[in-house]
């Protein structure tokens, strides 16, 4: 077992910030992520078992897969908004516990326009100063804390940061489109099961004046009633077959769960470095692993950078100097 460095002189309040945040992140990793994955898996599996069921049950199963898959989009929106616009003077996680009607919609509409500084915060490469709300880069802050980083590692970290931002821009833009496309179906599933009963309804082209035997009919993969007051009372998908739709949205949902997990892992590292006694007393600092490449896939980064960084650098504290 390695020796522990003493905790820094200035660190956030243990009771108000560190321990609630630690429990928040651990709950995310060990409770929420598995629950979200199980919900999507279950919805998809259930749909697969309903081949001979009535169209109403099948439609509900499709809506359920959408419902389960779009929920993580809300999760990521709450996490990202909390760290992007934290309350001043209190722990950042508190913002993620504040329900606001348009948090998810605002996030998914706006994230495609986020600049690099905001994406740095999202990725955990930077943080907001709790007083000024300004963005402070981790790479620039570490030397101020007495951490020296090898030049070669620093270059690889910079390359990983650039690759991460590039990947996030592309992925978040695509997911923003998915949110826009699928959230009406999710709302219909969640709020009242407002799934259109296709046994009693028929879809025709716009030029049909009335429903007659000769009018050509079209079958959507799913159709729902929208909330009262919306411009169009019905939202229907004619682009994909039901199975394709289910597969597509479930994959989207799983990707967002993975992003939520990466978001948490990118932040829990500094708390993981704290060692507690069995009674909960803070004992000191362990080496800190920075999961710098947590957002990346193999092809996102050159082999030489992977070889240098692997899962990310580890900071070892020179306890004698402290």
């Amino acid at each position: 077992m390695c020796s522990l460095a003493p905790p820094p002189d200035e660190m956030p309040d243990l009771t108000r910030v560190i321990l609630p945040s630690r429990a928040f992140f651990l709950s995310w990793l060990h409770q929420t992520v598995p629950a979200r994955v199980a919900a999507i898996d279950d919805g998809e599996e259930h749909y697969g078992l309903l081949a001979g069921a009535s169209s109403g049950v099948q439609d509900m199963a499709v809506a359920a897969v959408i419902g389960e898959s779009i929920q993580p989009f809300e999760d990521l929106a709450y996490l990202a908004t909390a760290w992007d616009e934290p309350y001043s003077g209190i722990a950042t996680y508190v913002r993620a516990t504040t329900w606001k009607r348009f948090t998810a919609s605002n996030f998914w509409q706006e994230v495609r326009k986020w600049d690099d500084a905001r994406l740095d915060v999202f990725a955990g490469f930077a943080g907001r100063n709790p007083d000024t709300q300004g963005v402070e880069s981790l790479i620039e802050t570490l030397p101020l804390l007495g951490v020296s980083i090898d030049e070669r590692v620093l270059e690889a970290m910079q390359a990983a940061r650039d690759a991460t931002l590039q990947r996030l821009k592309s992925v978040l833009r695509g997911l923003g489109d998915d949110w826009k496309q699928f959230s009406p179906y999710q709302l219909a599933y969640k709020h009242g099961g407002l799934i259109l009963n296709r046994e009693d309804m028929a879809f025709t082209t716009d030029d049909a004046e009335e429903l007659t035997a000769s009018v050509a009919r079209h079958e959507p993969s799913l159709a729902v009633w929208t909330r009262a007051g919306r411009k169009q009372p019905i939202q229907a998908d004619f682009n994909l077959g039901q199975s394709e739709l289910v597969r597509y949205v479930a994959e989207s949902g799983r990707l967002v769960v993975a992003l939520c997990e990466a978001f948490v892992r990118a932040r829990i590292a500094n708390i993981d470095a704290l060692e507690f006694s069995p009674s909960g007393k803070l004992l000191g600092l362990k080496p800190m692993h920075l999961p710098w490449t947590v957002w990346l896939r193999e092809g996102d980064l050159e082999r030489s950078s992977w070889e240098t960084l692997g899962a990310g650098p580890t900071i070892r504290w020179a306890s004698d100097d402290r």
Partner: protein
Amino acid sequence: MKAFAALSLRNPSWVERQGGVDLLTHLRGAADRAEYRRTGIARAFDRFLAAERNGEPEPSTGGLGLLVMQRALLAAEDLGGVLHAFREKDPWTELRATTIDRIDEAFEWAVVQPVEALPKVFLIADRNTLEEEGLGEGDIEILMRLRERTIQRWNRMLETSGSLWLSTRDVAKATMHGFPIWAGDFVFTPPGAGQLSEGLPDSPYGRCALLVTSTEHKTGSSTEVRTHRSPVRLDQEAVARYAREGKVAARLYAEICDAHAQSRMLGYAAGIPFLLARNVSASDRERLAELSQERRE
């Protein structure tokens, strides 16, 4: 694309006066939706039980318990939506614009004021209606006994569903909006969750979670943030209750929608459902079968 209702109606103007044909198509699809809700709850509960059997970690088992609760609450929300809608003049608009506050009020109204709620929500005929139909006194007595049994059953189901909704809707809502729920293990086991753990006794029931929600309060130019904590039971007994009550809510939702769909399709304003006809005495059952046959003819 354009959507048309593809229904043959006996009395279109009656349907229109009762909220329109779109609402009718929706009511006619309720049985399928309720069946899916029930199966979805059962599947989530099976996963929860399997996790317990397999000794999965407490936080992930608790997460599955929250999934059961969420699915149960979706069924309760379906029911609350129709309870609210059928109190109002424009049920189709109301059904598609329901809010949590309106659903709260609707459950309270239906449970506390059954005399007002029953005719509106359940379309159940009273003695006057039966007399106006020209039924004989003996038949009316049989139907009134069936009515009484039906009302007792619906009241029980309403109380069960209302209790589920009112006691757990905040948690279920949280699972749909950012999941601000801490697993009990990380709150009650050292080092704990700091000030979030303070003053909270460990759950006497075992597995649990902690819902944490914050609200903003503007005072002048500053904003005060208040954080609230609510423990959530996720032990097997509690999760089994969520599952059971959610299935009850789904069943009641389907029965109410069916009563309204039948009323619109057949053109009557109120009736006595024969759902419980098998539970009455043999002689009553025999006469009810004859009455049913006469009606059909």
